[in-house]
């Protein structure tokens, strides 16, 4: 028996964490939370993730998002901590069938378990002028919402889905992150869309959202 076969055997003996208890209705509820988040940028939408215990560093909320949005048609890119976990890859492959890709630019979705160290947003597929919808959606894990839980100061958002403007305290994100987000929205209609996955809540920033300069 080769080493590879041995690894595969030992993995096969590890019980795979379960997916949605009720695939139809759990996915629907999760999708509505994502849709509301995307339609109202910066708002927090709660997610019922009862029963999901995916292998770390995949979180329950991120697992729910993956089960809801990914399938054979959506190549997914994982950051280093996720890519390093055979259990995470097995979970995603088994439950979603999504091909795991090595190149960020090939991905329809990206999962980032260590957002503080994330690669530039420009690394992902930005879509084309004629097909801006073909861009990536990047999901940041382990996010906290509210001023007390974030290291960075809140940014102020404006644009479609926002009545006037709204403060968006979220983190952790890399120091240059908001500059990248602002640059992302300047190239509208091209650009990536962001989903922030917390412990039981999500928020989203579509490319259409503009970042207002923050008063210090």
């Amino acid at each position: 028996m080769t080493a590879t076969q041995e690894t595969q055997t030992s993995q096969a003996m590890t019980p795979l964490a379960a997916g949605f208890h009720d695939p139809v209705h759990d996915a629907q509820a999760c999708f509505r939370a994502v849709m509301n988040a995307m339609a109202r940028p910066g708002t927090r939408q709660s997610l019922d993730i009862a029963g999901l215990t995916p292998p770390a560093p995949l979180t329950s909320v991120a697992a729910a998002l993956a089960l809801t949005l990914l399938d054979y048609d959506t190549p997914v890119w994982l950051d280093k901590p996720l890519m390093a976990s055979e259990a995470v890859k097995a979970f995603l492959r088994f439950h979603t069938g999504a091909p795991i890709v090595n190149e960020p630019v090939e991905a329809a979705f990206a999962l980032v378990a260590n957002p503080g160290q994330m690669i530039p947003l420009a690394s992902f597929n930005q879509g084309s002028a004629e097909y801006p919808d073909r861009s990536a959606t990047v999901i940041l894990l382990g996010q906290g919402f509210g001023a007390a839980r974030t290291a960075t100061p809140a940014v102020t958002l404006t644009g479609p889905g926002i009545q006037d403007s709204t403060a968006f305290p979220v983190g952790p994100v890399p120091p240059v992150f908001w500059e990248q987000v602002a640059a992302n929205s300047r190239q509208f209609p091209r650009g990536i869309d962001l989903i922030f996955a917390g412990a039981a809540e999500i928020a989203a920033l579509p490319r259409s959202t503009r970042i207002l300069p923050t008063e210090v």
Partner: protein
Amino acid sequence: MTDTARIPESLHEQGEYNFAYLDEQTKRMIRRAILKGIAIPGYQVPFASREMPMPYGWGTGGVQVTAAILGRSDCLKMIDQGSDDTTNAVSLRGFFEKTAGVRTTCETAEASIIQTRHRIPEKDLREDQILVFQVPIPEPLRFLEPRETETRKMHALEDYGLMHVKLYEDIAKNGHIATTYAYPVKVNDRYVMDPSPTPKFDNPKIDRMAALQLYGAGREKRIYAIPPYTKVKSLDFEDYPFEIQKFDKPCGLCGAENVYLDEVILDDKGGRMFVCSDSDYCEERRADGHLGPMAADPAAARVGNTRTGETIR
């Protein structure tokens, strides 16, 4: 709309379909398209439209969007030309009652999802409501440029000169912009969009609407969206500003003014009246004691009665 276009009753009894008819793979694909549509307001996202157990023209695009977003706790309202009682609205309502078992209603305020063809309810929609449009022709430039490759380029370059030329020719010929339905709008200062065959009377309602708007075109395989509070401007010219239709009479039954009215024939002697196109709005006003100039007329009263098919109330 012929009888052969009816949704086969037997389908509802087979019990072999998934919740809300569509399979989960199809729902995921449509959901992803909806998310991209929301992220790019007014841009038409291509999607792999499925065969539905009803003909195109019956709102298969809207039905697929509704089926992809619908949950067990939703309450659904179906309107066609402002009415909940047309064959189309009744059939589609029945389709979701049977395939999803959800509650349905005719009352605008009660619905969490409203699927519509041709009209937007008179009552202001709320943040917790979703308006789904059935769209026959999603491409506002299609009548000016039949080639998809070309219209796609125009949208990419934000080159809407042709559309302005068309509207200006309208003015030259008629003295005003003659388009009264599917009047083109610009969404979020970027994409020119067709608000589906709604009368232009309803265009101001889609500007900064509190509810999320989703548009589905089944035959043309396109989904697009307008997030809440998004700026939507009807195209016009400085010297010919956009104007909505004005009705010089109030609704004959409920007396409402500044609403969209339909002309109704009362008898074979040429008797006619104008009534609210939004039948739920009209009924609620009458229930609240509002009376129009024709309310006492027996023939007119017959027009305004009966409401069938909803599961609650």
